[in-house]
């Protein structure tokens, strides 16, 4: 075989491997989406049906009207959205303040604080659940979305600060100094100079917190008892009934739950990678 032919063959093999990886990754997702649009006679069959020939919106409309546990899926989507957005709004403010502190100032206790952030990310939520459950109960926040928001802020904040810190550090200090020299106050400098430049980082961090809170199961499972306050991950469990599972409905709901995450992921994929392995990956 000539070198040219071999190189061409190598190229074909590489691309074939690429297609294979693509299909392997996407197939289960595709199967979830397509099952949500299949009529029941195509779901409950031992045949493999690659795409819905009896295409139907029946499951989507069913989860939107009847829903699960007596409530439309919109209610659970709304609860999830409230918890996630609440987490993002509170978390973003706190994260920005702390990130500015560690990225802009050298102070005593800075290194211990950074170490604390790393340790905090590792604490398993199972360990926090029991004391948080007791605390939330005592404060009267049990069965309240606010109680859930508070715990989600805690779970997402350490990583939020860790990620945002690199964005603040990337803004040249000279810009702020120029503003000071021009007579701007510290607050004005922060608001008019630093904030707009850090905004993309803030968006990336917020989306990360949003996804984490949106996906979270354990806290939502045990800090909420009232079905009207369920979030999506909790509500989904109720499709696994005693008499058999409503696969069409659960696939339609899972798809609805996945859509916002996919959209956000495509927006900030690169920033999330650099945030997670910050420092280790150069370039």
């Amino acid at each position: 075989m000539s070198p040219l032919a071999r190189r061409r063959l190598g190229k074909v093999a590489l691309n074939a491997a690429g297609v294979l990886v693509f299909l392997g990754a996407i197939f289960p997702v595709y199967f979830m989406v397509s099952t949500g649009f299949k009529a029941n006679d195509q779901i409950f069959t031992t045949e493999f049906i690659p795409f819905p020939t009896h295409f139907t919106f029946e499951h989507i409309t069913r989860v939107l009207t009847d829903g699960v546990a007596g409530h439309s899926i919109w209610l659970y989507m709304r609860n999830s959205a409230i918890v996630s957005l609440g987490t993002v709004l509170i978390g973003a403010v706190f994260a920005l303040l702390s990130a500015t502190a560690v990225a802009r100032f050298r102070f005593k206790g800075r290194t211990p604080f950074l170490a604390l952030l790393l340790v905090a990310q590792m604490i398993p939520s199972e360990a926090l659940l029991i004391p948080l459950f007791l605390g939330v109960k005592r404060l009267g926040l049990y069965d309240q979305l606010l109680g859930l928001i508070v715990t989600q802020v805690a779970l997402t904040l350490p990583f939020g600060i860790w990620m945002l810190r690199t964005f603040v550090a990337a803004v040249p200090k000279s810009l702020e100094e120029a503003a000071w020299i021009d007579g701007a106050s510290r607050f004005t400098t922060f608001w008019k100079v630093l904030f707009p430049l850090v905004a993309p980082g803030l968006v990336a961090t917020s989306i990360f917190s949003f996804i984490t809170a949106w996906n979270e199961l354990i806290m939502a499972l045990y800090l909420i008892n009232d079905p009207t306050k369920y979030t999506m991950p909790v509500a989904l469990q109720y499709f696994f009934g005693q008499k058999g599972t409503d696969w069409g409905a659960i696939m339609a709901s899972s798809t609805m739950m996945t859509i916002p995450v996919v959209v956000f992921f495509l927006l900030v994929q690169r920033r999330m990678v650099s945030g997670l392995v910050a420092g280790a990956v150069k370039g």
Partner: protein
Amino acid sequence: MTNTSTLARGGGRASTPGPRRANRPARAGGLPAWSIPYVLLIPGLLVIGALLLWPLIQMVIISFQKVGLVQISGKKPATWVGLENFTKVFENDIFWSSLRNTVVFAVIAVPLTLILGTAVGILLHRLGKKMSLFVIIGIMFAWAVPPVAQGVIWRWLFDAERGIINWALNLLPDWLSNALFGRADWTGQPWLNDAWSIYMVLIICVVWAGFPFIAVSVLAGLKGIPAELYEAAKVDGSGPWRTFRKITFPLLKPVFAVLTVLSIIWDFKVFAQLYVLAGTTNREAYNLSMYAVTEAFKAPPKMGSGAAIAVVLTVILLIVTAAYIRQMFKQEEL
């Protein structure tokens, strides 16, 4: 008020008129300059302290206490029981099977995720621009699926009656299926009844959802390695495996270290996928996360024993974290 303090402070300094920069602390809104980072840190520290560290300490305390229904409702104070929760938990077979499940799962899933992820990362690096983007978007979908939905998908694929895994296994020629697995008929194979097959499905699920992150991170690392190194290796006649061992791996070692630790941490506390795949009734299939939570919240609740199990899990994770933190501090000028 701000005005007066500015005046007072400014007045003291202005007596020796210097460059304008010397005036800067005077505009800090009345706060001495050294205190500003601490003020900025207060909200974050409060949240982390009150909602992460304090509960963590509480958990350790609760693990030495009896906290049942009457204690939760506040009718009776929690009573100290010493090491009783721990000894009871350690005497329970479920604890040991949970520990075994947790460790065996991580020992298999972590290397599989890392190897597959690295291989795909290298593949992405060698593919053309368009093809690479195409594959990245594909794997992004697997990565983006929420953990609960991941569990739902794989539970459906491995469903005994309608799952396509059984359908696909039935497609195999009977002689091959017999030779490989000792059986030809897979109809109704209940994958999600036995602990071992539940964990097999869980491994597939977690590797599938986890490798994209590794791949994209390795790709980011590879982009930072100068192409000349690879060209030189090629000229010297180095094969792909040797090139990986001598160039790629040493240069990306810090990346691999962080990815390994992150994967270990994620896989040790996997919960949502297991919860959907196995439910809470199959005690044989518990891992430590699931055992801690169900023990604490079952009827009647045993928060003390739940906390004891959570302590064990946390200690394991903190040992791993120590390595991670050292790595992060070595890598970066924090």
